[in-house]
């Protein structure tokens, strides 16, 4: 499939070409529009046998299994698995905190690359891709579509988005969980600077709606290491009060709080079955993406 001729900073053709060889799988049955390579929760006309069902008047007689009748003297219909495409719904956090970038790339730019890569892979293999930019609510959103022209719209949206403003991630995710049609593949790309307990509720909501949820947790190296030497005035990018602190004095407590948060978050993702990936922005994005795709490939499509 030809690459968008407009050169986007978040698109690297070479990386995309490498990633294209790794299929994007869903872990749960997807509910697509057309036939595809992903498992559908419904029965269809694929070659993969699914189950026997008792014949009821009106069933297609071509599906009767005469051998089963011969063995059991009863009429059974063979049912086959249905394959469908997946609807990839990318949720990109565009709140102010995503602006942080000390490793040469901001978290938002990193998220752009991830989102663009995933959208490209999905459309390339015939799946649908959509995008929702969230901050203080849903900033912009486009539904998931399969055609390549939609990819351009998605990329335009990504390019135009900017990390600004406060975040209401939890409420927005609840909203998305409800509005996105069931059994979609939702990928959230955010720094998740919210209460892990509330996030767990969000993840539960997505699970209830039978979505296959993946989360890319982006963290800047400075946010992890907290290596400051001088007294520092920390400006809240999401519009809160600035804090003046002596980093040397609070570094160990910062690490303690961060560690506790990450553990809680990990716990939440484990218990809710979220495909969780924590990425540092100084790590090449394609590494994380490859890891994600390969991991999904191993797990395979579950039924």
């Amino acid at each position: 499939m030809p690459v968008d001729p407009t050169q986007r900073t978040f698109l690297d053709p070479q990386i995309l070409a490498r990633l294209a060889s790794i299929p994007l799988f869903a872990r749960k049955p997807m509910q697509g529009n057309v036939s595809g390579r992903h498992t559908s929760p419904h029965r269809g006309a694929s070659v993969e046998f699914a189950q026997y069902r008792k014949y009821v008047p009106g069933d297609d007689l071509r599906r009767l299994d005469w051998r089963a009748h011969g063995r059991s003297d009863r009429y059974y219909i063979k049912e086959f698995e249905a394959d469908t495409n997946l609807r990839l719904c990318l949720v990109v956090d565009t709140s102010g905190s995503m602006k942080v970038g000390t490793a040469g790339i901001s978290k938002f730019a990193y998220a752009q690359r991830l989102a663009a890569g995933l959208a490209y892979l999905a459309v390339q293999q015939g799946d649908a891709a959509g995008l929702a930019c969230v901050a203080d609510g849903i900033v912009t959103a486009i539904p998931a579509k399969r055609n390549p022209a939609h990819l351009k719209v998605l990329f335009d949206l990504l390019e135009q988005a900017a990390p600004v403003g406060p975040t209401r991630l939890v409420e927005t995710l609840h909203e998305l969980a409800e509005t996105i049609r069931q059994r979609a593949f939702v990928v959230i790309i955010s720094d998740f600077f919210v209460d892990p307990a509330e996030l767990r509720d969000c993840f539960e909501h997505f699970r209830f709606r039978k979505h296959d949820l993946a989360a890319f947790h982006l963290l800047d190296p400075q946010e992890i290491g907290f290596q400051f030497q001088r007294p520092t005035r920390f400006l809240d990018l999401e519009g809160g009060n600035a804090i003046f602190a002596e980093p040397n004095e609070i570094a160990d407590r910062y690490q303690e709080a961060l560690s506790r948060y990450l553990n809680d978050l990990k716990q939440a993702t484990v218990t809710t079955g979220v495909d969780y990936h924590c990425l540092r922005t100084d790590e090449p994005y394609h590494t994380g993406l490859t890891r994600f795709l390969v991991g999904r490939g191993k797990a395979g499509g579950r039924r």
Partner: protein
Amino acid sequence: MSFLEPLLLAALPLCGLPILIHLINQRRFQTVEWGAMRFLLEANRMARGHSRIRRWLILACRTLAIAALIFVISRPLASGWIGLAGGSESDTTIILLDRSPSMNQRDALAHASKLETGISQLSQALGLVRSKRWILIDSATLASQELESPQMLSRTVAANAVSKSAHLPTLIQAAHDYIQENRSGQTEIWILSDLQANDWDAENGRWKTLRDSFLQFQQAVRFHLLAYPEAAAANVGVRVTSIERQQTGDTAQLLLSIILTASPDAKSTEIPLRFDIQGVRTEHVVQWEGPQLELRNFAIPIDPELKQGHGRVTIPADAYPTDDEYYFVFSEPMPRRAILVADEEDVPRPLRLATAISPDPNTFNEVEVVRPAQIAALNLGDVALLVWQAPLPQGGDATRIESFVASGGQVIFLPPELPTADTLFGIGWTDWHETETSLAIENWRSDEDLLVRTQSGQSLPVGQLQIHRFCGLTGEFTKLAWLKDGSPLLARVPTGKGGVWFLTTTIQPRDSSLAIDGVVLYAMLQRAIANGAAARGNTQNVVAGILPKETTLNWKQLEGAGTLLSSDYADIAGVYSAGDRIVAINRSEQEDNPATLPLEKVDKLFEGLRFDRVSDSAGEFSALAREIWRIFLVLLIVVLFVESLLCLPSRKKATTSLP
């Protein structure tokens, strides 16, 4: 606290530098746009308390370090007593100087005497103390002298040691009297002394009286003692115990009895004794093994024409130069004449014999027995002793006897058979007391006067005397021996030059065993004769400080220390002429005893009073005002160490690993 470089204290405001830097540092912050505010808020909340305390402690340490450094370079002084000058100005500062001979002991290296060292230290240290008035009282004059400033101390006459012994109770009494008379306010009393036991007289009852009296003062009085108890090293001293001019035909010689004493660390084996007798010098080397050597009747030939003269004996100078010389005067021996005055016709033979027999085979005593009525016609000019066993003389006879005593004569009164109510020298006889059983002597003064121990140190057998009958006494007297019921047996009346004693019994066997015993009676009489002969002769060897100052105003100095005021002659060793008499003034025998009072005893003497003490040694100028910069240097190091510990970064938790 005072400082040798007080101007450097102007840098003290630099202590604010750490605070200023901290404030500037606070302003020199960097601004960072941050997303993970939740962790920051949480961390900030957790660290608030400890962090603030630690920050303040670090700031305090840095401020203290700068302050300590400034103090170090300002060279602070503490007066051996930390915090001396930290307080308010005192109203009066009294300086009590012990100018006794022992204060002339010198340090072998510094060659400065204890007195010089002490005065120098006091001048320096007191220069840092504030006081409205500076008063000097020395042990020689006991007179208060106002100084403009402590620096004037070394320029006063009191800066020189004298030969007169000090008596600290009297010296402190002088300070007490000054405070009382002048009603001074807060007073600081500084005492400079070498703690010689003889001078301090710790057993004297006046200490308690003084202590109680000072405690009753309303104003604050504080005592400071700068003590130099260390004895002079390797010291040898010389003293002449007796001198006699002896003429045999055409030759004459001086018989000197000399005692040499040495400190335990003195190692000399040979001491050259140098005699200088009116310009004629002789030297004699003695073999010495210490600690004491006595030369008895060491003969030095002199010009037979020289009937009367003076001289001195010296040994090589050492750390205590005062005891390296001794002055003496000599003359033809005065006849040892005694008059026995009695009402009875027969004066008991023992009395005659005890008076007549001289202890020295080369001298002869003359004894004459007279009646009281004959005394008026007698020439008492060459009489050494009068023994009066009759009713006390009155009128002209009393006046003659008083003159006799005033000129150095010695009188011993024995009770008459029928005492009258008359008095002489303020003393009178009362009634006879008979006892059924003999009374023994309760106690007697064996340290001085007629009943003093012999030269070999043995006591007279006074305790063996038996008293059957004694007569009572009225008046003020000093008991030299007393009976079990407290009645005096032998009493001395205070007089100037001569001596007056009252013996309350007679030598009659019915009254006492004095005649039977014999020794005590003999010793008493012979000693009285010797005293009289010495006092009434043309020459006199006197202990410094005994004679009143007024008596020396017309004296001339023949030998001795440099230029002196005539009023000081009585206190300073030397030979002086007083008309046709010559007098040798020397230090007292007690000054040769180096024993010092233990410091615990000194502290006890000032118990209850505000008192502090610094002990030092001659030549050492650092005790009083001591530089204490080292204390601040140690403080600086400690503070910097604490600050570095506080600044150590807390062991950082390893960077959180991502799940």
